């Protein structure tokens, strides 16, 4: 045994195995990002042709008429995200904080379990629920109903990331705070959440990105709108619903515009992501 470690043949065998396994992991990494590259390639190459200033500032044109844009859908998606985030972020962040700081009991366990179940509920089912809870009592489709559906989709993602990120904050910070005579709730807000803020922001972003890409729950909540509308209690257009309609329509011009809408949606999420990273970046260079 001892001898074999020093033997040259063994050394080469280990070295070859190492190189082989390394290449295997590298290959897997490439395969994993391949779909993403395809998505970028197709949306850019097919969507770029209709991407111009008109797309952002003009309304959709009737079939047959070329040109036009999706100003209403872009603003609609932003409003829907705003409503969804407005409801989902506070609930998600506070639930996550509760779970990690005070949720070490049966009730916390139950909430955690239910949150996990909620994150597994198909988005179309969430749409039906929002339809039943909001659309039917209000008797019409609305941006608000769409926002509620998106909020329900965001909450479990934000809750669980918030909880995990807060759990990562070392216990010593809390003890340091307690030893200084700071009340526990203040430590949670000013020290713990602030230390975990970067991770929580990632969770928020994941939640928003998920919501921005949803189509199914919007079909019977926000419905869609051919016209300019920014009213919260009226049906509202959204990029995803437009993509769905335009991509399946039998008109080449619409199909192309669907690609452009996809490109805009992806860019929107990317810009949001960059913006978030910029806002939540660390004030101090030498600390992660």
């Amino acid at each position, binding site marked *: 045994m001892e001898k074999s470690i020093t033997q040259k043949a063994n050394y080469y065998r280990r070295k070859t195995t190492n190189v082989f396994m390394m290449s295997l992991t590298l290959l897997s990494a490439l395969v994993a990002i391949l779909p993403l590259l395809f998505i970028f390639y197709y949306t850019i190459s097919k969507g770029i042709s209709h991407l111009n200033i008109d797309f952002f500032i003009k309304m959709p044109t009737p079939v047959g008429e070329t040109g036009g844009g999706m100003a209403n859908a872009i603003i609609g998606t932003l409003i829907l995200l705003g409503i969804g985030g407005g409801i989902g972020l506070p609930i998600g962040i506070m639930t996550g904080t509760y779970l990690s700081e005070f949720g070490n009991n049966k009730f916390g366990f139950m909430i955690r379990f239910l949150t996990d179940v909620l994150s597994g509920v198909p988005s179309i089912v969430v749409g039906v629920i929002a339809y039943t809870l909001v659309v039917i009592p209000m008797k019409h489709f609305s941006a608000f109903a769409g926002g509620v559906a998106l909020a329900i989709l965001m909450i479990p993602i934000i809750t669980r990331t918030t909880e995990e990120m807060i759990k990562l904050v*070392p216990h*010593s*910070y809390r*003890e*340091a*705070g*307690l*030893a*200084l*005579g*700071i*009340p526990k709730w*203040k*430590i949670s807000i*000013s*020290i713990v959440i*602030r*230390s975990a*803020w970067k991770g929580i922001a990632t969770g928020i972003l994941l939640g928003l990105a998920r919501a921005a890409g949803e189509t199914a729950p919007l079909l019977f909540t926000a419905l869609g709108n051919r016209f300019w509308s920014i009213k919260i209690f009226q049906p509202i257009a959204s990029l995803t619903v437009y993509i769905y309609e335009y991509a399946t329509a039998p008109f080449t011009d619409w199909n192309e515009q669907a690609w452009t809408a996809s490109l805009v949606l992806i860019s929107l999420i990317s810009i949001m992501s960059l913006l978030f990273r910029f806002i939540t970046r660390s*004030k*101090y260079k*030498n*600390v992660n």
Partner: protein
Amino acid sequence: MNVVDKIKTVQEPARFFSEKDNIKILVKNLSAFFGKNKVLKNIYIDIPEKKVIAIIGPSGCGKSTFLRNLDRMHEVVGGTITGSITFDGEDIMQMDPVYVRRKIGMVFQKPNPFPTMSIFNNVVAGLKLNGFKNKKKLSEIVEKSLKQAALWDEVKDMLNESGGAISGGQQQRLCIARTLAVNPEVILMDEPASALDPISTAKIEELIFELKKNYTIVIVTHNMQQAARVSDYTAFFFMGELVEFSETNKMFTAPDKKQTEDYITGRFG
């Protein structure tokens, strides 16, 4: 066996200090538990004002638990106690723990400044987060506390940088400054120099020497020389019991108990 236990709890040992001495913290028949596990057994100890008390003993003897009892940090990790601890004649278990911890500050083994806060905000964290807002007063306190902690000259030009940006030894002095800023009367130190190099350790020890003019200090240490250097009184703990308490000089030259002598001379532990 039960009878022996009973006798132990009933019998109060002779007090080391007389009534005339200024006693800051009085510990009577203190037992501490983690669940059913008794980690401190019927401790009687008086902590005199403006002195340094070192607590020595092998790992797991209950030193840290004892220290954490004095500012009610023991209950934070789910521990319970019996017996009484009085601070200036008041039972700390009857006091608001937040108030107790403002009066009895604590410095931990590992430096733990808040990395999301600047050095300035680290020092005044205890004040700011309790609603103290006067900016001029705050910067005065920062300067005073950092000077007391012998850190001012090293960080005065970088007060706006992160508390995590300085060296370990500086971080520990920052933590001491942070503790001083809330103006406590007692400072508990749980092996404050065990994670530091000899030079930083020397600085912390000098600091302790300075601080005892104004504060009562209880320090847990694994380092026998350190205990001998910085403390006025030393308590030797073993297996959750207080074996011996006396003047440091006496403890390290002529201890009463054989067990103490064995530990100090390195025959066990």
